[in-house]
């Protein structure tokens, strides 16, 4: 192993994974994204929503809590209602904004 590689804390595999993910996310044209994805409410982690409804959270990355019911994330078509959401009354993500149920 050469010196550069042995000094690297971040592995080549991790870099490849990140760059691969970045290319996959960014290469999909926006129109195709709109066609192949659905807005899924209640599945985004805090600050990881693609966009959100409601005052104070009109921009991507502004959800204040995990699984916020009025924050949505683009997910592949058909997977939203299979994605677990502890705040959702159905227990899964929903295609419309919902009122969160209290987490135990």
């Amino acid at each position, binding site marked *: 192993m050469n010196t*550069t*590689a042995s000094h*690297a*804390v*971040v592995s*080549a*595999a*991790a*870099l*490849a*994974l*990140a*760059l*691969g*993910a*970045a*290319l996959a*996310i*960014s*290469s999909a044209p926006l129109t195709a994204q709109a066609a192949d994805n659905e807005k899924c409410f209640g599945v985004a982690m805090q*600050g990881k929503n693609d966009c959100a409804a409601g*005052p*104070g959270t*009109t*921009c991507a*990355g*502004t959800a204040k809590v995990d699984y916020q019911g009025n924050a949505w994330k683009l997910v592949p078509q058909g997977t939203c209602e299979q994605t677990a959401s502890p705040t959702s009354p159905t227990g899964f993500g929903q295609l419309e904004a919902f009122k969160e149920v209290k987490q135990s």
Partner: protein
Amino acid sequence: MNSQQDFFAALLDPERDCPADLKTWNGSDPAARFAVYRNNVLSSLIDALAASFPVVQQLVGEAFFRAMAAVYVRHSPPRTRILADYGTDFPTFIEGFAPAGSLPYLADVARLELLRIRAYHAADAAPLNPTVLAAALAVPERLGSLRLRLQPALGLLDSAFAVVSLWAAHQGALALAEVDPDQAQCALVLRNGLAVEVLGIRRGDLVFIQALLQGQPLGAATQPALASDPTFDLGACLAQLLRAGAITHCTYDKQRPLP
């Protein structure tokens, strides 16, 4: 002092007398004509600052802004003919301007507005074709030494205050009442076509992009980002830069850019 310097000094300082030896074409009082000119110089420079720093003006109100700007104009008149470049040290001036001391975030809001102006006038740079990065991905063992160059318009601001939210609140994107100004935020300024964008980024993103700007390769830039922010997500950060068209070149060493 020659007469030109005399004239200039009197323009900025209302306490000074009208320069001697001025004549008017119609016999009116030169001092009255000079006062009009002095007023126009001052107010047009204040107007230029108001155009460059609209959010600062909204935060303090027009009367306060114009009074503050008048002090600045007299203290730092333009050094270049390019009015768009006027005010580069206005944020530093605001920081030391005692009457604005109750708004400690004001200087950083001004810094953000300055980055937007800089971005607007920065050189164009075509985004890197993603296929070049896809090719780099085929050689994962060299990824750590890959260097990315970013668009000239890109700007970063690391603030102890909620600069992004304060700015966004004045674009109608959020309610000002909901903004906690004392929440530290990092801002990324980019230009997409002719539109200048302000994005809130995480601390790790800022450290990573700073390292890229310093010419650090991908591996070395990722380490300080993870060290400063364990939640740093390299994939998400790169995706954001790619989507914005912010990456313009990539190379394994500084001399030979990839095709």
